[in-house]
């Protein structure tokens, strides 16, 4: 099925804001673990999301990819169960226990029917605290991971993202590939995996969100059983990463009809007073949906691309303001020229009061639509904690969006947006770059 992307024009109707009506309760267990809970009893299952801050940034330079490979192996056998046995036991409950490693965290997503929740939780605890890391599983998953990394090495989107990170965060863990390289993964030993397990999953770096058919008391007991045996954190989190890429163009030759262009410059910190203004500015300019300035200029008017997006990429240990677009090789130079002109437009007060009104109506109206099921609510609850929000953020978030003024937008644009600092990583066989003055 083919997703359709579209455009923004004049908004004809004003929306009255809809209250989210989400009742989030803080839960604290005997052992001192905390969670945010939305109790929802109409469907007999619970969704739980656990985030362990840290992730691949904890990898030492000489074992890149260890956290990622370790995380893959958590569901490959634990306690008395080998890989097949563990998977069969989960399948028999019709629950799910999924681990994922990212750059800044490892996450655990659990879904369990009320009728056999205890069995699912026992299996999750086993995977978390008693993984076997059997030699056979290690070698099989290592081979799969290397194959995946070799595929990534020929994927223009991955090539562009990696090259951009290398330039943007030189000397920082953010410059490294989250999943390692074929060479680094080939060199990892079982001891490296055990060390990564001790480093990444700890009782003092853990956040929990839950939604569905469960009480606060049940959740508290469940957390103590699941997390109580984990060790304390020993590996420090990295320092803040300064943005290091200078303005310019980096071309990486790659076969294919299109050029993938990753572009950006320094961003803004989450605790900056102008963060919300920057977020709203980006929603108007290029943020993740169809009615943005960049989609209109590059797609609707000129037919240059199927899609373009920018984001205020504010993360735990470093920030950027960056975007991605694909276009025909023959039109790559034109795209770069237009993007610099759009940056100019944004930096020099291009956004109008009407643009701001429209996006505020959209953002405040769309916010409650996110809370639409146990699985999505559990994910939002954990991620809000990870990003450092207060528990009542859900109730004030729309007020914060509405409080942003056009002066705020212009101030943050002037401060943050700089066409001269833009770095473009272009992967493909781009044409028309010769006369761009770089």
């Amino acid at each position, binding site marked *: 099925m083919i997703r359709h992307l579209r455009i923004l024009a004049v908004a004809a109707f004003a929306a009255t804001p809809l209250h989210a009506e989400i009742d989030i309760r803080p839960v604290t267990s005997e052992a001192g673990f905390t969670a945010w809970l939305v109790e929802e009893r109409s469907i007999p299952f619970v969704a739980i999301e656990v985030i362990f801050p840290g992730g691949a940034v904890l990898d030492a330079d000489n074992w890149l990819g260890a956290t990622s490979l370790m995380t893959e192996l958590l569901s490959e056998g634990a306690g008395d169960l080998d890989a097949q046995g563990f998977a069969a036991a989960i399948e028999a409950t019709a629950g799910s226990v999924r681990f994922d490693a990212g750059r800044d965290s490892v996450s655990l997503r659990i879904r369990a029917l009320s009728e056999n929740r205890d069995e699912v939780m026992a299996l999750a605890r086993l995977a978390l605290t008693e993984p076997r890391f059997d030699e056979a599983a290690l070698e099989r998953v290592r081979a799969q991971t290397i194959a995946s990394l070799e595929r990534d090495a020929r994927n223009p989107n991955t090539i562009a993202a990696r090259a951009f990170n290398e330039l943007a965060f030189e000397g920082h863990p953010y410059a490294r590939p989250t999943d390692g390289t074929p060479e680094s993964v080939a060199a990892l030993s079982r001891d490296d995996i055990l060390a990564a397990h001790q480093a990444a999953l700890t009782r003092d770096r853990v956040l929990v969100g839950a939604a569905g058919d469960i009480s606060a008391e049940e959740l508290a007991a469940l957390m103590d059983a699941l997390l109580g045996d984990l060790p304390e954190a020993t590996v420090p989190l990295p320092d803040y990463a300064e943005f290091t890429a200078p303005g310019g163009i980096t071309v990486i030759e790659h076969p294919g009809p299109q050029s993938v262009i990753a572009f950006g410059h320094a961003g803004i910190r989450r605790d900056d007073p102008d963060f919300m203004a920057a977020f709203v500015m980006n929603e108007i300019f290029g943020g993740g949906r169809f009615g943005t300035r960049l989609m209109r200029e590059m797609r609707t008017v000129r037919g240059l691309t199927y899609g373009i997006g920018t984001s205020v990429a504010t993360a735990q240990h470093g920030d950027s303001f960056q975007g991605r677009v*694909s276009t025909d090789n023959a039109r790559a130079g034109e795209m770069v020229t237009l993007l610099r002109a759009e940056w100019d437009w944004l930096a020099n007060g291009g956004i109008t009061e009407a643009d701001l009104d429209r996006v505020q109506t959209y953002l405040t109206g769309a916010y409650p639509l996110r*809370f639409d099921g146990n699985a999505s609510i559990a994910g939002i609850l954990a991620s809000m904690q990870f990003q450092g929000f207060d528990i009542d953020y859900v109730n004030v978030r729309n007020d914060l969006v509405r409080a942003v003024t056009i002066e705020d937008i212009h101030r943050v644009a002037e401060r943050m947006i700089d066409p001269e600092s833009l770095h473009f990583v272009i992967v493909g066989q781009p044409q028309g770059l010769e006369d761009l003055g770089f």
Partner: protein
Amino acid sequence: MVTRIHPRAVLAALALWLGLALFASQQLAAAEPAAAGSTPREFTLENGLQVVVIEDRRAPVVTQMLWYRVGAADEPPGLSGIAHYLEHLMFKATDNMEQGEFSAVVEANGGRDNAFTSWDYTGYFQRVAADRLELMMEMEADRMANLRIDLSDWLPERDVILEERSQVLESRPERVFGEQMRATLFQNHPYGIPIIGWRHEMEILDEAAATAFYRAHYAPNNAILIVAGYADAEEVRAMAERHFGPIPANPEAGPVARPTEPPHHAERRLIMRDPRVAQPFVNRVHLAPVRRAGDQAEAAAFSMLGALLGGSSQTSVLERRLTHEKGVALSAWAGHNGNARDHGTFSLGVTPAPGISLEEAEAALDAVLAEFIENGVDAEQFERVRMQVRAAAIYELDDASARARSIGADLAIGLTLEDSLGWLGALLEVTPDEVIAAARALDRRASVTGWLKGEEG
């Protein structure tokens, strides 16, 4: 996260049964409180518009979906891609709304909207706060009857769909390979033509072709309206009568006869080479039964076969034998797609482990399939799959939009609401013997086997 790409989607619409089908059993729905999981209500307007309402009052949010029973398999010869191109143009102007106003209004109301095209249907949807439903319906009805295609819109939009083809298809050798596989599997039916279209034909699509396709197929009697979420069936009926009711039926519109497949007599084999391929793999696709109105048993057996052979990356037969025990595969897959009007597919394949050739991998795959037929279904595995089918019914109640998609897709391919709700039951009625019979029925003469390789090797 490491994404281990299992090329399960080498045929664009190939979907594993656990993902696409609806598992809402009546027994379960009856046991649930009204807040979620209610039994859908169905009625038809005088002009033929079929309407289904799925009530779920947990959150004040509603999804409207309008499905047209027309897709890429209904395109005139030489105009491949016109159904999808029209889908893009439906977001432009109407006689009553300016270019782009549709989505602007959805956004101004805090909603999101999108659309999709398949071989059998084209769908449009919006997700909004519950009190905006009538506005969405008014606009959706407007563009059913009053689309206006201007030169300043359709010309750049044709470049957009060409860029879309470059980005989502031609930049990915696995997708190009899938397109070639499909074009080879279907000898006569238009399922062999890509939804997005062949590039050389897309380049000549224009306003006249889009308008003709729109007039021929977009009408209330060729559409299904699904409303899911915080809504009342009687209110939806009144709203639909107000906005869609005045649009006259088009007696010419409706599912049209398509070319169908003749008997296949020759197994086909493909080899594609592309320097961008890092991991070679072998994939085989057979013609297979579809779910038919009032008769889903045969398709259900193939779906259970797909789940047993390839439904789990650890315990399914192909992964267990080829990846875990023999160590000849990095991954192995199988799956049935019976969600189509005319012909289904069953596919299976292997990405070989390092040092194993495609020839060896294919031989190992054939051997495991023969062994499965010989040994029969493992009783414990069969029970686990059945447990997951039952649980899927509960999990799907958590997502009203997903229920709308499943039911809409089922009705759009000619199934009834009863069939849609009965699919779970059909899966649970399948016996191990029927699974083995389905495996035996996989006919190599009605299949294509493809090897995707890099330049070396």
